[in-house]
């Protein structure tokens, strides 16, 4: 296939059946978003958010962009910003993997670190504060930008429906909530019987270190009503399923993929026999090698060692 520039190569990712991990009587399919140009699902929303801001006239030549991100959205934005002459600064928790910093800097982005113990909540708050103090900066703000779920409604969901019209359930991780919201609405408007499940990462205790509950945050783009359930997955289970995916299906993915896969397997027994369940793999495993997640060793020990960095 030929493309006129890298943004045109975003999307149309493979949907791969998992014959060895699907429970008897069910078919689990994995949508490999790691095949996008910068290696994650975030290429879709980075393009959609930048195109929307340009269409609204908010991005002039040399515009400065600021975004809270744990890595993938920043890397995706950085790649497009580089080609369009925008400068990008990412506010990122200090405990994110080394590869994410390397890639961001390689694509020309600057990084401002937010405190690790405040997790992505802390990055969101710091970015909002910096944007308030600097009226010339443009913040796409993936947690509150309608272009995020719209990108998944228009592209991710359309691809699933085209590749697998018999889809009966969809599972994706919860970060901004954009994937489950956008894909979920499109699938349910096509067939209201389709079920949508969110796999919620259970972060280390440290990351929940808010001063009080009023510092809690529910992203504006998440529509909780589109979900049929929301199931949390701890780092041990997510890592175990991520490693089974490599060992039994030959697919090397990031840890969030293991979380969605675990939920996909768990919900099969509440779906009719013969169901086709799509789980979403947001990225490949490459950016997590330095964390030790894929080192040789006992999964339980690794998960304990990595509990503060694994999802960050």
């Amino acid at each position, binding site marked *: 296939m030929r493309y006129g520039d890298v943004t045109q190569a975003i999307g149309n990712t493979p949907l791969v059946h998992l014959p060895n991990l699907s429970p008897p009587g069910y078919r689990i399919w994995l949508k490999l978003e790691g095949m996008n140009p910068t290696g994650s699902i975030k290429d879709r929303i980075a393009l959609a958010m930048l195109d929307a801001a340009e269409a609204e006239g908010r991005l002039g030549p040399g515009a400065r962009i600021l975004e809270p*991100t744990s890595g993938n959205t920043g890397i995706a934005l950085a790649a497009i910003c580089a080609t369009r002459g925008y400068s990008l600064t990412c506010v990122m928790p200090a405990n994110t993997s080394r590869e994410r910093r390397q890639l961001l800097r390689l694509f020309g982005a600057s990084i401002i670190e937010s405190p690790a113990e405040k997790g*992505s*909540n802390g990055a969101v708050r710091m970015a909002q504060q910096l944007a308030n103090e600097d009226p010339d900066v443009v913040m796409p703000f993936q947690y509150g930008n309608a272009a995020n779920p719209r990108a998944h409604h228009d592209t991710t969901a359309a691809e699933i429906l085209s590749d697998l019209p018999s889809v009966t359930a969809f599972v994706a991780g919860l970060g901004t*909530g954009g994937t489950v919201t956008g894909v979920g609405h499109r699938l349910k408007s096509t067939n209201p019987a389709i079920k949508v499940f969110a796999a919620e990462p259970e972060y280390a205790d440290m990351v929940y*270190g*808010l001063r009080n509950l009023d510092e*809690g945050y529910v992203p504006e783009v998440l529509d909780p009503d589109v979900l049929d359930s*929301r199931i949390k997955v701890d780092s041990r289970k997510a890592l175990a399923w991520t490693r089974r995916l490599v060992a039994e299906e030959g697919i090397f993915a990031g840890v969030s993929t293991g979380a969605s896969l675990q939920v996909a397997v768990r919900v099969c027994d509440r779906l009719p026999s013969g169901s086709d369940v799509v789980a979403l793999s947001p990225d490949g495993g490459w950016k997590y090698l330095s964390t030790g997640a894929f080192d040789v060793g006992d999964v339980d020990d690794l998960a304990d060692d990595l509990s503060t960095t694994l999802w960050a």
Partner: protein
Amino acid sequence: MASVRIPTILRKHTEGAARVAADGDTVREVFTNVVDTHPGLTSSLFDGDDLRGFINVYVADEDIRYLDGLATPVAGSDEIAIMPAVAGGA
């Protein structure tokens, strides 16, 4: 008895304990027993009769908003986890 996992931010009300055991057939009954012993938790768990905002409660890993809310049944071996609502990585 069900085991209730207390997030770091609320452990000041449980003398630092990360887990509290309490009886009850539903989440509401378990939480009522928990706040009897640890009254400081009341306003962190309840807003009137309802679950307070910005916290998520899970029975056996599943968000009770998608089960029966505070009426969700609890088996003796179940873990009830309380977690603050936070932004996810993205």
